[in-house]
């Protein structure tokens, strides 16, 4: 039940973001589904492995791979799907709490949340890197 609820919320949130970035109208729903799936996978994997970094990694990986598949299927640039899909995963809350701890001069908390935020950002980057290098090498093999 919780998964369905968070899927709907992140679906709506991602569609709103795609409108801010002005994605084409016919791919709004697809980006919404991508964003929703990313968040649900993040929740599921975070529970499974008990670490938010792993969850974010798998979520970014699925968003990247699905984005590339959608891009080749509908003949659109992959970034159209990946940019709004990745937005839900950006650790905005982590950055905010790091900043808050710094303001309150709780430096231990700041370092704790700050390092976690940096690791989450790195996990997202690695997920995207893996998916797009995979798609590139597949395209190169197919092209030959």
């Amino acid at each position, binding site marked *: 039940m919780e998964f369905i609820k968070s899927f709907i919320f992140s679906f709506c949130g991602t569609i709103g973001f795609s*409108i801010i970035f002005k994605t*084409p109208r016919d791919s709004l729903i697809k980006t919404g589904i991508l964003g929703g799936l990313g968040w649900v996978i993040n929740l599921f994997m975070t529970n499974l492995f008990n670490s938010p970094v792993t969850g974010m990694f798998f979520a970014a990986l699925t968003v990247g791979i699905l984005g590339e598949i959608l891009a080749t299927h509908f003949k659109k640039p992959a970034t*159209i799907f990946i940019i709004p899909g990745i937005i839900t995963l950006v650790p905005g809350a982590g*950055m905010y709490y790091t900043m808050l701890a710094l303001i309150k001069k709780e430096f231990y908390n700041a370092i704790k949340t700050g390092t976690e935020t940096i690791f989450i950002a790195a996990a997202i980057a690695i997920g995207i890197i893996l998916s797009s290098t995979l798609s590139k090498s597949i395209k190169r093999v197919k092209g030959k």
Partner: protein
Amino acid sequence: MFIKSLFFIFKLHKFDNDFTSKNPTIEVIYLTPKEKFEQKEAKNLLLLATRTGSIMLQNGAETYRVEDTIVRMCKSRKYIQAVDAFVTPTGIFASLECQGELTTNIQRIKSIKIDLNKVDLINNFSRKFVNSNMSTKQGMSELAKINMIKSYKQAEIVIYGSLSAAFFSILFGGAGLDFISSFLVSIIVIMCTTILAKYDVSFFISNFCGAAIASLLSILFFKMGLGENMDKIIIGSLMPLVPGVSITNAIRDTISGDFVSGLSRGMEAFVIASAIAFGAGFILNIYFKGMV
């Protein structure tokens, strides 16, 4: 190909070296009318390709896609012997060779406003241009038409963008009242940032102001009783300022080997993120000291 063209240039300047000999043989190359037309067409083609690239880059495409588009558009015509393009987020350099003459074009990119719909449309346009026998003049008019398109109305962007901010505040664990207040806050934030963008304010200042307004209004709404968790309202209403395009493009540029653009895009994302943190921190610092 490259050696052949070098030899050609050498032949053109041969008479410089023959100065000492008594009868310098000056080779004059006559171009047929068709070749002359092709040279002219090649210049137009380069202009068209760089303009296409600059529109793509301004609307948030990755640099390797822009380079690829320029090279493909130029190579699709048979009279072009060699093309190369170097693209960074702040400028495009492209040169091509036609009938032994090199033409170069530099285009500086200053403003960036994100519009992924235009990237998609121009991607389709370049594919059509490569596969068909379109003239450069026709291509120019089509490009101008695409550049005039308005993908979304401003009101749509404000309303849906703030709705998404509201959904994010719930997603991060907010309650029903937080939804309403972060919706109201981010309407004002998005309107303020668009107004600031109209006056060409630098992106640091506009993000700083956006974050400051967001946290100030969130504190106000929280004090008025409209909202349960102040943190969730602030996080939700800060989300529309997150530099998603720069983050994604920085990663994708770096993997595809464009380290310069990857670094500069990453720097942009980092500066925007720190601007948001400064803006929100500025207001929160005042708030925690009990001045509001």
